[in-house]
């Protein structure tokens, strides 16, 4: 083949490639979800992520109206970098329209609420979201069993009609904790694509909530393109995974406002503040010292060696278990190359790091009706045996649920008491844990029942 022909062939390929790629790029419709997308990204410093939260606290109330009015009246200056959410309509200036919108939200008037989503972009939902359900005409879809917890906290559990099958399906959910869960319909495919969009319409689902990773672009595009005809509200806030620093706590606080149910979410906010305060007080009053940990991760069917670990990863999505556990003076002894910090590591490698504590996290056990406490204890013991046989002498704990769940903060103090028994009071720890289960779940047991339940941390302190 002569040089001239090769050059012609290469030129033809390159020309076709340039034209096609150029056409594709020019034709790029970057929208990926419901609501407006002005292309800007927002950096905010507050847990409540709705536009209107002018003072960056955890509540949408008259204080925000006053804050904006003071700016409009010239009594204070607006720092767009510090208080970006004061510009409710995103027109670049603070005017009476901004505080009028906030007042409408407070008054519960029907409209559109804007928030900063997991892409750090401005997205919207119909407000209030409770109205979207039209007294039970429309339903909610939530991903995984952990995705049912926020519904219980907000009093919306009866409105959930669909869930996605991930850890365990509705057939295996503990019906005491999740009543009538066996009647929920389920998407067996975790990842939602445009194939599923029609089902959302057909099954009258108007609100969906889950992890960013499981909403395919084709699904989000279908939602966005048809918004106006069928308003499917995709709440683009993380439920189980921390995305770029956005935690499920931020989500819970924001959901309360979106549904105009701050009276319900306020209780949970105060509870988390109480837990955080107790941790801070204990750390300040005693020299606890930072300890290292590694968090192996297990679930029914998972291999014991190598096993997955939750660790710090290379990307913005983080397994929220790491985020929660590091509220205690704990430092991860390992980081992995995967973006979300979830990767398989040989047990020998884990031993080599020699962390002070191994905290085995799991999913599917606590909310499963078929997995008994004895079974998961045996499972944790099997894992512990591997490490003990390899000479590990540190602390080993087992948690029957994912740390990133709503329940994730509840057990922190009981765990902390076990690690630093002088600094963290046992009675206070159990009281706070019981407060969570009693107030925010359907758990009906007593405190002594809780201490003996599968929600309590399993300990293997020394072999």
């Amino acid at each position, binding site marked *: *083949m*002569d*040089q001239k*022909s*090769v050059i012609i*062939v*290469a030129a*033809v*390929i390159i020309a*076709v*490639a340039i034209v*096609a*790629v150029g*056409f*594709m*790029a020019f*034709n*790029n*419709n*970057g929208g*990926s979800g419901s609501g407006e997308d002005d292309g800007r990204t927002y950096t905010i410093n507050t847990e409540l992520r709705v536009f209107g939260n002018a003072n960056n606290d955890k509540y949408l109330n008259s204080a925000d109206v006053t804050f904006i009015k003071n700016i409009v009246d010239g009594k204070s200056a607006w720092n767009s970098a510090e208080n970006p959410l004061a510009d409710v309509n995103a027109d670049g200036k603070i005017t009476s329209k901004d505080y009028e919108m906030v007042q409408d939200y407070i008054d519960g008037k029907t409209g559109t609420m804007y928030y900063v989503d997991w892409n750090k972009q401005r997205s919207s939902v119909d407000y209030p979201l409770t109205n979207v359900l039209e007294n039970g005409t429309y339903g909610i879809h939530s991903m995984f069993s952990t995705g049912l917890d926020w519904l219980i906290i907000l009093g919306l559990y009866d409105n959930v009609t669909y869930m996605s099958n991930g850890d365990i399906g509705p057939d295996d959910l503990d019906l005491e904790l999740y009543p009538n869960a066996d009647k929920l319909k389920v*998407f*067996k*495919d*975790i*990842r939602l*694509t*445009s*194939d*599923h*969009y*029609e*089902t959302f*319409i*057909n*099954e009258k689902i108007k609100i969906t909530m889950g*992890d*960013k*990773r*499981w909403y*395919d*672009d*084709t699904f989000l*595009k*279908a939602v966005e*393109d*048809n918004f106006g*005809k*069928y308003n499917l509200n995709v709440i683009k806030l993380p439920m189980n995974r921390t995305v770029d620093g956005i935690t499920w706590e931020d989500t819970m606080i924001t959901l309360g406002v979106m549904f105009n149910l701050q009276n319900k979410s306020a209780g949970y906010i105060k509870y988390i503040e109480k837990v955080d305060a107790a941790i801070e007080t204990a750390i300040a009053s005693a020299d606890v010292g930072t300890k290292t940990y590694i968090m192996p991760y297990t679930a029914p069917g998972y291999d014991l060696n190598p096993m997955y670990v939750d660790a710090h*990863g*290379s*990307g913005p*999505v983080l397994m929220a278990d790491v985020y929660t556990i590091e509220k205690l003076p704990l430092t991860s002894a390992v980081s992995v*190359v*995967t*973006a*979300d910090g*979830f990767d398989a590591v040989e047990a020998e490698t884990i031993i080599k790091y020699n962390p002070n504590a191994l905290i085995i996290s799991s999913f599917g056990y606590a909310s499963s009706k078929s997995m008994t406490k004895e079974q998961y204890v045996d499972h944790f013991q099997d894992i512990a045996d591997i490490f003990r046989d390899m000479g590990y002498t540190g602390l080993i704990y087992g948690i029957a649920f994912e740390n990133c769940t709503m329940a994730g903060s509840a057990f922190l103090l009981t765990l902390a008491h076990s690690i630093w028994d002088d600094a963290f009071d046992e009675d206070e720890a159990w009281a706070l844990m019981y407060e969570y289960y009693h107030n925010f779940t359907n758990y009906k047991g007593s405190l002594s029942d809780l201490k003996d339940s599968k929600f309590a941390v399993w300990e293997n302190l020394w072999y």
Partner: protein
Amino acid sequence: MSENKLEEDHILSADVINSVKDWNTDYSDDAQFADTVKDYKSSIVKKFIFIAFFLVVIVVVTSIAITVGAVNIGFFEVYEIIWQHLTGNIVSDYDYIVFEMRLPRVVAGIIAGAGLAICGVIMQSVLKNPLADPYTTGVSSGASFGAVIAMTLGFTAAFGSNSLVILAFAFSLVPTMVIAMMSRFSNASPTTVIMAGIGIMYIFNAVTTVLMLWADSSALNQIFYWQTGSLALIKGWESIPVMFGVVLFGVVISMFISGKLNVLATGDDSAKALGINADRMRLLCLVLTGIVSAAVVSYTGLIGFVGLVTPHIVRMFIGADNRYLVPASAIFGAALMIVADVIGRVIIYPSALPVGVVMSFIGGPIFLWMVIRRNSSAW
């Protein structure tokens, strides 16, 4: 002597009688030619009947495919909605579902099926290999590499899924370019092309695997879904223009060169004797199939078996004449793709099997059956 008298003559043996009859038969050129022309015309009619039949199949299956979905929209209502949309009189709440979701998917399936089928025909002809398919030159591994880069290195998160299409398309052309460059140093014989394609495939697959080792579970899920091939990856009508344009270009060119493909199939020496540069022709065909299959897989993922099985099935009915094999394969491939997609959407409803999986289920057994009943006169 007349035949009757021959029969009555008991002295002559049967051999003699048959020989006389044979001598008396009209084997003149005109008679033979007339028979040949008659047979030829008959075979041509059969080919056109085959093509027409599957054109009707496409219309019928397309009609059914548009009505399949979670939302129950009646058969005639669907066409009413399409007509209303085309005339600018949109009144139905299901307009978006029919016109923006179902119809583009079906159209994309037709285009993809036709594109991959003609690529298969061309590849099997120029490489003289019944196992050749659109991905033999490594197009699939290049596209997969581009797609994995997009999904693991955050391009899709930052720039949307069009970045996946762009990267898949760009990298899917690399194997073809490498083979073209290699032909400077070696010839472009079928063996060279296949071996080069395998080598490139292994290189790309190795790098792809390394990237996947570092991918998080979400990216791995996306990658798996893309590698199985699915029409659900088609996002509205914006996916159609490039695919349609490139595939149409491919169909037109392949029709144009189909006669030369017949000559090439007789062997390189025969082709050269008839004035065709076999190596150059082969290379041009590889470039053509590379571009067409790249345009398809970058949008749909790796849908297998269409390009491999379609030419074999069509050959069983209309023979190996590329002048008819190319358009017939395009039509049959389009029909097969739509049928597979409908099956995938119905069989485990409300979930859906990707069309690539269904094609494997259909194509595998068909391929085994063809091997067992192989008619070597058609290949």
